[in-house]
């Protein structure tokens, strides 16, 4: 004997009874009242069951008991079983969201004080940095959040991995089933995962203020934890490091801010020898070439269309914004088509309809339904090592949701959700679906009628004598009524009932004159669906991202070619001087330079008559192409941070500087502290990745700084507490740090010789704590890392040379060095180079004695002299800045050009490779319309290693292509707006231009 509940009764029994089949707690918990044991099984009958992403059963049944799936297939009801009729409905395994802060309180920032906080304010024996809190354990703060449960349920989610979204190291997460009662049952696994991010969060501590600081902090914490783990007799307790070490076996998740962070996170993962699941955004397609098989969590969010009807507004929308709007719906598709393993998070989406719309949009753009289901069920389950959820297979937990139709059809709604032994019904299952096409028969005359039902509402239209009239109405399972107008103020009002599950409707209608007529409507089919699938479900080929996906990105990356440059005035910048000749480029190198060279047919011919050819310009001092912070000026020394971790390959200024002939740039840390961070030396290979741009085997450099910036002279009255505040203090910072570095080398060098730098690879216990800061400083002592020191005033320049002499190394380069002319003799004697501005001065007190003749004097006194930019704008005109040394101090033209080519190349220890038009060097060449030092000359092309990354012709073509693409997307946006899409006013990302002095907290 089994009980077949009527739907209505079932609804009452389970929806009103706080949505639970059983409603009792753990058996060992005290009971108030009589015990309510249940071993009843439940049978859901007649549904389309998505057993797994690959397998769908139609007209099948599923049996559950005590929160588990007992059977799936064609089943007969058992005795004593509750049967639930879900005929025609769909049942899906509950979705799993791995990026949630469900049930946890958000961290808020304390009141911002103007006084900088240098030390942690956390109580207890934890680590030194407030943003590193591996000890935080989400499960200990977990509560049930009813409204969130409902929000998740109606999007199909039954389980989440929840963690505190605050800090760089965020602690452990809890894997939780979304129940409305019984928190103890909710928690499937505490300490299920460990969480990390590239954002500082609510910490008020100064360090880190930059992205590179964040990355350095993660690396250092890793080495600290390794060391802490290895010491047998600890002389102190650090609960943070203990927690870090305990999280080692768990899956690690890292949240990034944008697509460019993904390759950064992947490099970190490699260094830490620790797989990371990366939580990305809807822009991950932008780094598709670099992702490989990296596990990614992505949202389904898409940006709103922009309000671009007014062409003057549309102009403000960046190409990057437009392209991203166009491509973000294809994000999931692009990833899955390249077999990137993804898991989908609902994060960023709040309503059920939006979630399913975006899911369908992703499918429409080319993600298969199977991939979509995997990304929501089996993939996230496997990533956290769960083998009993994600499918509707016998023995699995009974987590599923029931929908009115396939989740890939428009207007799908979640009707009910089952989580373990808790059942929540959101809509009456039995609601009829009246959507479809009908033949409306009014007293013998037939009219076509199309209806669409949503909830209890009806709308549609009727075709009468060639005209369509819109229909509106409402219905229940027992009644249906609707109305439509006719010409001459006539209104027909229909009242009736549905029969045979809505296949036939009949009743009476009243006309405006008060007459009653009999009507009936017989369902003909799902006409609606067909028309919809044409309009909305049509597969859309995703547009291709550009390289990079911003203004002036390439649609096809330029290729390396071999060239013959004929009859051009060559400024060799080597001992051959300037002459009229030819240049052959092969395999990215300068193959031959000389007069009357043989031209072979395999070489692309470039007529250089009347033109000038120079080496690519080398900028010793640049701050372009850096993501989120150029300074980690929160400590007197930040030698551990690396610009190389945060190179931004999509900065438009790369392209702009190419157009000014720059091919190589040293991206320097800022000048906020005496010992800054490590540089990156890049070639401006627009359209490639950060790693491709970096000159891999370039020697290491580090930024030092002197003067007003490092003593915080112009930072305001609150910034008076960090040592040093005087030039006297600056000297002591150096002695202190180099002394420590020396001591470090005493332990580190023997270990290094044994190959003990990464302890995980060796069984032998580490003998010392790897310190990234001291390691960089020790490299300076070993002359394997070189200093480029921001400097103005002669006294302190002299001081640093004394420090260097006493420590046995040389200061490689003084950059800016505006008072260099006052001690050019000493610089020459020490062997330091000077990289200066042509004519800057008067911006600070310490540059009051700066003179534009500086370069000329330095050069005359035998100092290797360069002219640098430190400025994104001026970087495009470095040839003109070099020309100023001719004006101020009568430097010869050839020597002037060397100040932006071979001289800075030599400072960077790359003179064997770049900086002159010399056989065997990299083919980094610039062709100019005229004399390269003249204000009237323009760049015709800029070549790096045989690839023309910029040319005038290409530039003109790109403008046409870009405008066409903009127009296409703008039209699409306007169409979207007219089709009812929500739009927003144009907002422009304000590109950040860095100088040495830029000191802003961007670690958040």
């Amino acid at each position, binding site marked *: 004997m089994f009980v077949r509940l009527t739907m209505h009764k079932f609804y009452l029994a389970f929806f009103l009874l706080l949505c639970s089949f059983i409603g009792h707690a753990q058996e060992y918990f005290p009971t108030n009242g009589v015990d309510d044991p249940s071993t009843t099984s439940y049978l859901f009958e007649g549904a389309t069951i998505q057993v797994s992403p690959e397998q769908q059963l139609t007209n099948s049944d599923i049996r559950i008991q005590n929160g588990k799936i007992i059977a799936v297939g064609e089943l007969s009801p058992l005795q004593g079983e509750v049967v639930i009729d879900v005929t025609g409905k769909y049942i899906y395994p509950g979705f799993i969201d791995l990026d949630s802060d469900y049930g946890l309180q958000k961290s808020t920032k304390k009141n911002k004080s103007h006084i900088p906080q240098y030390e942690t304010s956390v109580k207890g024996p934890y680590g030194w940095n407030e943003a590193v809190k591996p000890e935080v354990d989400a499960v200990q703060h977990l509560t049930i959040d009813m409204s969130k449960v409902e929000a998740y349920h109606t999007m199909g989610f039954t389980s989440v991995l929840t963690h505190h979204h605050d800090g760089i190291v965020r602690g452990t997460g809890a894997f939780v089933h979304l129940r409305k009662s019984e928190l103890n049952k909710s928690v499937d696994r505490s300490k299920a995962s460990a969480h990390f991010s590239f954002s500082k969060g609510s910490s008020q501590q100064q360090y880190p203020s930059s992205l590179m600081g964040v990355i350095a902090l993660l690396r250092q914490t890793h080495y600290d934890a390794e060391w802490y783990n290895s010491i047998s007799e600890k002389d102190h307790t650090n609960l943070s490091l203990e927690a870090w070490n305990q999280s080692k076996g768990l899956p690690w998740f890292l949240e990034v801010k944008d697509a460019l962070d993904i390759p950064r996170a992947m490099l970190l993962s490699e260094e830490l020898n620790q797989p990371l699941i990366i939580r990305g955004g809807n822009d991950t397609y932008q780094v598709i070439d670099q992702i490989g098989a990296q596990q990614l969590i992505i949202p389904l969010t898409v940006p709103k269309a922009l309000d671009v009807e007014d062409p003057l507004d549309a102009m403000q929308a960046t190409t990057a914004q437009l392209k991203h709007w166009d491509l973000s719906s294809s994000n999931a598709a692009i990833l899955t088509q390249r077999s990137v393993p993804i898991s989908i998070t609902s994060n960023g989406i709040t309503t059920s309809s939006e979630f399913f719309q975006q899911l369908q949009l992703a499918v429409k753009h080319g993600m298969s339904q199977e991939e979509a289901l995997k990304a929501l069920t089996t993939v996230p389950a496997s990533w956290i090592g769960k083998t009993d959820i994600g499918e509707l297979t016998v023995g699995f937990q009974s987590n599923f949701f029931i929908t009115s139709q396939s989740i890939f059809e428009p207007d799908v709604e979640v009707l009910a959700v089952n989580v373990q032994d808790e059942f929540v019904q959101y809509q009456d299952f039995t609601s009829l679906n009246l959507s479809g096409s009908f033949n409306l028969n009014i007293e013998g005359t037939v009219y076509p009628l199309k209806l669409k039902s949503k909830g209890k509402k009806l709308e549609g239209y009727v075709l009468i004598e060639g005209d369509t009239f819109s229909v509106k109405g409402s219905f229940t399972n027992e009644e249906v009524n609707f109305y439509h107008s006719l010409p001459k103020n006539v209104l027909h009002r229909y009242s009736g009932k549905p029969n045979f599950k809505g296949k036939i409707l009949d009743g009476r209608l009243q006309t405006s004159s008060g007459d009653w007529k009999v009507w009936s409507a017989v369902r003909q089919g799902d006409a609606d669906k067909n028309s919809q699938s044409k309009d909305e479900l049509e597969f859309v080929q995703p547009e291709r991202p550009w390289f990079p996906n911003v203004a002036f990105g390439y649609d096809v990356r330029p290729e390396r070619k071999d060239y013959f440059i004929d009859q051009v005035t060559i400024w060799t910048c080597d001992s051959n001087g300037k002459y009229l000749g030819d240049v052959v480029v092969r395999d990215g190198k300068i193959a031959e330079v000389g007069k009357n060279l043989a031209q072979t047919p395999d070489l692309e011919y470039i007529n250089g008559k009347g033109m000038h050819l120079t080496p690519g310009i080398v900028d010793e001092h640049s701050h372009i192409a850096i993501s989120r912070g150029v300074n980690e000026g929160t400590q007197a020394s930040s030698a551990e941070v690396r610009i190389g971790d945060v190179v931004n390959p999509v900065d438009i200024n790369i392209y702009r500087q190419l157009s000014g002939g720059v091919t190589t740039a040293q991206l320097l840390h800022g000048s906020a502290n005496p010992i800054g961070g490590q540089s990156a030396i890049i070639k401006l290979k627009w359209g490639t990745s950060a790693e491709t741009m970096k000159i891999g085997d370039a020697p290491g450099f580090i930024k030092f700084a002197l003067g*007003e910036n490092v003593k915080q002279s112009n930072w305001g009255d609150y910034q008076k507490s960090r040592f040093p505040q005087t030039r006297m203090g600056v000297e002591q910072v150096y002695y202190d740090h180099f002394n420590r570095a020396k001591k470090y080398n005493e332990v580190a060098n023997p270990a290094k010789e044994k190959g003990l730098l990464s302890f995980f690879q060796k069984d032998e216990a580490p003998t010392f704590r790897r310190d990234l800061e001291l390691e960089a400083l020790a490299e300076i002592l070993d002359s394997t890392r070189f200093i480029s020191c921001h400097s103005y005033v002669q006294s302190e320049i002299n001081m640093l040379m004394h420090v260097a002499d006493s420590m046995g190394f040389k200061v490689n380069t003084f950059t800016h060095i505006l008072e260099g002319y*006052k001690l050019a003799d000493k610089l020459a004697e020490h062997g330091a180079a000077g990289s200066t501005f042509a004519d800057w001065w008067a911006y600070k007190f310490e540059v009051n004695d700066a003179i534009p003749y500086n370069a000329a004097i330095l050069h*005359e006194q035998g100092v290797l002299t360069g002219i640098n930019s430190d400025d994104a704008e001026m970087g495009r005109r470095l040839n003109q800045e070099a020309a100023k040394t001719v004006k101020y101090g009568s430097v010869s033209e050839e020597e002037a050009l060397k100040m932006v080519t071979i001289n800075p190349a030599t400072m960077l220890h790359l003179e064997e490779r770049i900086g002159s038009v010399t056989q065997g060097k990299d083919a980094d060449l610039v062709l100019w319309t005229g004399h390269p030092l003249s204000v009237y000359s323009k760049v015709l092309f800029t070549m790096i290693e045989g690839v023309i990354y910029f040319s005038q012709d290409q530039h003109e073509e790109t403008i046409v292509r870009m405008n066409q693409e903009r127009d296409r997307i703008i039209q699409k946006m306007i169409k979207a707006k007219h089709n009812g899409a929500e739009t927003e006013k144009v907002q422009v990302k304000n590109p950040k231009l860095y100088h040495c002095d830029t000191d802003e907290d961007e670690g958040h």
Partner: protein
Amino acid sequence: MWAQVPTPTTDQTPKNVLILGGIAHIGNGDKMENVAISLKNGYIDFIKYQMGSRIDRSQYDTVIQLEKEHIYPGFIATNSTIGLREIDAVRATLDYDDVGEYNPHVRSAIAYNTESRITPTVRSNGILLAQVTPRGGVISGTSSVMKLDGWNWEDALQAENQGVHLNWPPQYTGGGWWAEPGVLKENDKSEDKIKQVYEFFREAQAYAADTAPNTMNLRLHAMRGVFNEGQILYVHANRAKELRQIAQLKKEFHLQNVVIVGGYDAYLVPEVLKDQSIGVMYRRAHSLPLRPEDPVDLPYRIPAILQDTGILFCLDMGSGDMEVMNQRNLPFLAGTAVAYGLTYEDAVAAITGNTAKLLGIDDEVGTLENGKEATLFISSGDALDMKSNQVIIAFIKGNAIDLNDPQKELYRKYQGKYGAR
């Protein structure tokens, strides 16, 4: 005698000077080669071709014989805080931005520091006049044109209180705060701010119409010239919609002289500006494009585009990074404009004759024409190209100024240290 600012000449009686030969760039779009220029009593007595002219050399104290040298009217810096700021990072040396949103009564002339160490380095590149301009607020204050020579502000004056400066409410403002500048947003306060500007102008117009107001209102009083006396209203703005709004303001209040300062988008709405005879001081051409998709060289090309539209414009080094010291690079903005399509003589006009018109001083200076003040200089090479700009002689109202500057002094001093030359 270390790093002194050179001695002014404004108390001297100008000598009579005859310049023979050389290439004269008139400053109005024309050029004359092999000229004779007579400077008498501080004015240009005549300029004519040497060939076929009979000139009595005995009338002159000095005769300068040139060959291939170039003669230019003194270049004019516009929209500058020169003399109002010395060292950007030292607050005590900054005198260009006062408290308050509507400050037309604040005037630059009296704060102009003739002892600035920067000024001599600027004029030794050919910049001999400057519009000294306050900054900040909605109405920053009143500018004056100064000669870059003088014992004190009074004798340095070229044109006192010649313009009032209005910063037009921007259509877009940077969102966020200093730590996260992130997003440039449409300025939702711009409409309100524009309303406030209109209200202020209505009050000022009424006040100006009253010949004998009962109560002195310093703010409104300082606006009278804009309505009655041909004082120029300089409105600082760059984007097309803002420029359109400014043209509306001019129409609404029947303002006689309005000049846009900035004007990056002026080429997009030329008919609007021409219709209202609004000129443009085009912002520093050596700037990055306003928008990432603007062609990289658009800022360089805009002068040529403006020339084609017929809008009266000049080139402005203007506000921005290190603006005062950068004024010495003004000639090279013109050089860049030549590289990107402007004719050479039009480029010279864009830092001389056109500029004088936009400052309302074209009757006095700006071109090498009879009757104009003898404010001009000679460069041994092309002064618009950094590799050849070498000013050898410069006159301000007929007096040859000392082209020395503190930087040259330091140069010589340290050459001495190394025993060179």
